[in-house]
C-alpha cells in the first residue's frame, strides 16, 4: 500500500482516484446488487437477441413463411363465442401484451410504495403484479395447448403452409375448405390432422398440374416453442421470485433493512425486462 503523504492528503477527497480504489464508494452510485442485476439483464438480452436473430435469419432464408395473422387467429371460448370460422387475427396475443404491460405498471407502483417505506402498498401492488404474470402464463398455456392439441404443430412438423402458386382444391377438408375452392399465391393454409395422419389436400394449379398441400418451413415450430417457451420460463421464474419477495415484504423483513425496499426494486428491474423482451417477441413473431 502507498503510504506517502499525497495519498493521505487525498484520502478524504471523494473525487480522487485513490479513495475510489480503496473501496467503500460506489462509482455508479448504485448498490452491488442493482448493478449486477443490470449486467445480468444485459447478458440475458444477448441470449434473447441470439434467438430472435436466428429466427430472422432462418425466415429470410426460406422461400415462404407462415403468416402470423393466419397462424395466431384463434382465441379461447371458441373464438370468444364467434365460432371457429371467424378469424380473430392477433386479438388474443394483444390481450396477452396488455396483461404484461399492466403488470409492469403495477410493479412500478410497488417500487414507488417501497421508496416511501409503505409495507402494505408494496404487498398490494406486488400481488397485482403476480396476478398479471400468472394471467399471462395462463394465456400462454392456452395458446400452446391450442397449437399442439388442436392445430398439431410440433417442434419438427409445421402444418402452416403458404401457397406458392394459384389453383383450385380437388377435395375438401371439412374445416372450411370445400372441393372446387380457389386460392391465390401467398394464401395460407393449415393442414388438419385426422385419424389417419395429416390430411394434405390435393389441388390443381392454374397451369394444370396436380399437387398436394406441402408442409410449411420446419423451423417455424421449433423457433416458436423455444423462443416463447424461453420467455415464458422467464415469466414463470419472475412470478416465483415476485411471490417470495412479496411474502418477505409482508413478513416485515425489508422494514428492518431501511433501504427503501431495494429488493423490490431489483425484482422490479427483472420484471420490466421480461416485459421489454416481450415487446420484441411480439414484434418479430406476431406483428411482422
Amino acid at each position, binding site marked *: 500500500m502507498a503510504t506517502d503523504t499525497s495519498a493521505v492528503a487525498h484520502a478524504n477527497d471523494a473525487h480522487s482516484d485513490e479513495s475510489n480504489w480503496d473501496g467503500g464508494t460506489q462509482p455508479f452510485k448504485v448498490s452491488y446488487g442493482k448493478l449486477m442485476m443490470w449486467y445480468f439483464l444485459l447478458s440475458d438480452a444477448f441470449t434473447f437477441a441470439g434467438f430472435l436473430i436466428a429466427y430472422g435469419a432462418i425466415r429470410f432464408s426460406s422461400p415462404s413463411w407462415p403468416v402470423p395473422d393466419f397462424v395466431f387467429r384463434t382465441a379461447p371460448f371458441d373464438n370468444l363465442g364467434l365460432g371457429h370460422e371467424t378469424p380473430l387475427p392477433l386479438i388474443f396475443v394483444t390481450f396477452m401484451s396488455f396483461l404484461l404491460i399492466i403488470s409492469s405498471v403495477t410493479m412500478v407502483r410497488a417500487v414507488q410504495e417501497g421508496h416511501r417505506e409503505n409495507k402494505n402498498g408494496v404487498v398490494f401492488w406486488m400481488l397485482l403484479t403476480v396476478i398479471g404474470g400468472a394471467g399471462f402464463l395462463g394465456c400462454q398455456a392456452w395458446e400452446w395447448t391450442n397449437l399442439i392439441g388442436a392445430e398439431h404443430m410440433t417442434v419438427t412438423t409445421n402444418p402452416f403452409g403458404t401457397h406458392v402458386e394459384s389453383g383450385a382444391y380437388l377435395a375438401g377438408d371439412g374445416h372450411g375448405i370445400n372441393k372446387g375452392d380457389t386460392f391465390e399465391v401467398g394464401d395460407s393454409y393449415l393442414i388438419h390432422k385426422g385419424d389417419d395422419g395429416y390430411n394434405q389436400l390435393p389441388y390443381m394449379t392454374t397451369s394444370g398440374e396436380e399437387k398436394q398441400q406441402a408442409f410449411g418451413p420446419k423451423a417455424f415450430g421449433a423457433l416458436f416453442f423455444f423462443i416463447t417457451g424461453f420467455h415464458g420460463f422467464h415469466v414463470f421464474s419472475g412470478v416465483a421470485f415476485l411471490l417470495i419477495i412479496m411474502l418477505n415484504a409482508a413478513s416485515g423483513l425489508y422494514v428492518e433493512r431501511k433501504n427503501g425496499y431495494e429488493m423490490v426494486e431489483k425484482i422490479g428491474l427483472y420484471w420490466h425486462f421480461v416485459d421489454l423482451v416481450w415487446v420484441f417477441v411480439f*414484434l418479430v413473431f406476431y406483428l411482422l
Partner: protein
Amino acid sequence: MGHHNYEDAIKGVYKGLFLLAAVTLVEVFFSLAGKGYIGFLGFLEHASWAVYVVGFALIALSLYKAYFIVYEFMHMGSEVRGLRMTVLLPTLLLVWAVVAFFQEGGSWKTRRDVIKQRNEIQVKQVPQTGSLIKELPTNDI
C-alpha cells in the same frame, strides 16, 4: 424522470400505462392494415412497398416502447452516465449481428435454390471414344 412529488409520480405511471397500451394498439392496427385486414386500407395487401413502410413503422414503435420501459420504468434515465453507457453501448453490437445474419439468411436462400437446381442436373452419357482409360465391366466395380 425526477418525480420528487408523490402525486406527480403516480400520474406519470398511469401516463406510461396509457402510452404503452396506445402504442401497442397502433402497432396491431398497422400490422393488420399491412396484411389487408382493415377495410378501407385493403389495397395495402397488394402494394409492394407496404411491407417496408409497415415494417419500418413497427420496428420504430417497438424501439420507442423499449426506450420508454428502460428509461422510465427501470429508471435508467436517473442512473449515472457510466452505468448507462456500460449497459447500453454493448447492445449496439447487436446492430451488426442483425445486419450480418440477415444478409447471411438471404444468401442461404439463393444458395438453396442453386443447390436444388444443380441436384436436378442429369449426367449426360457421353460415348467414350479413344479414351486412355480402359472402361471396366460393371461387375468388376
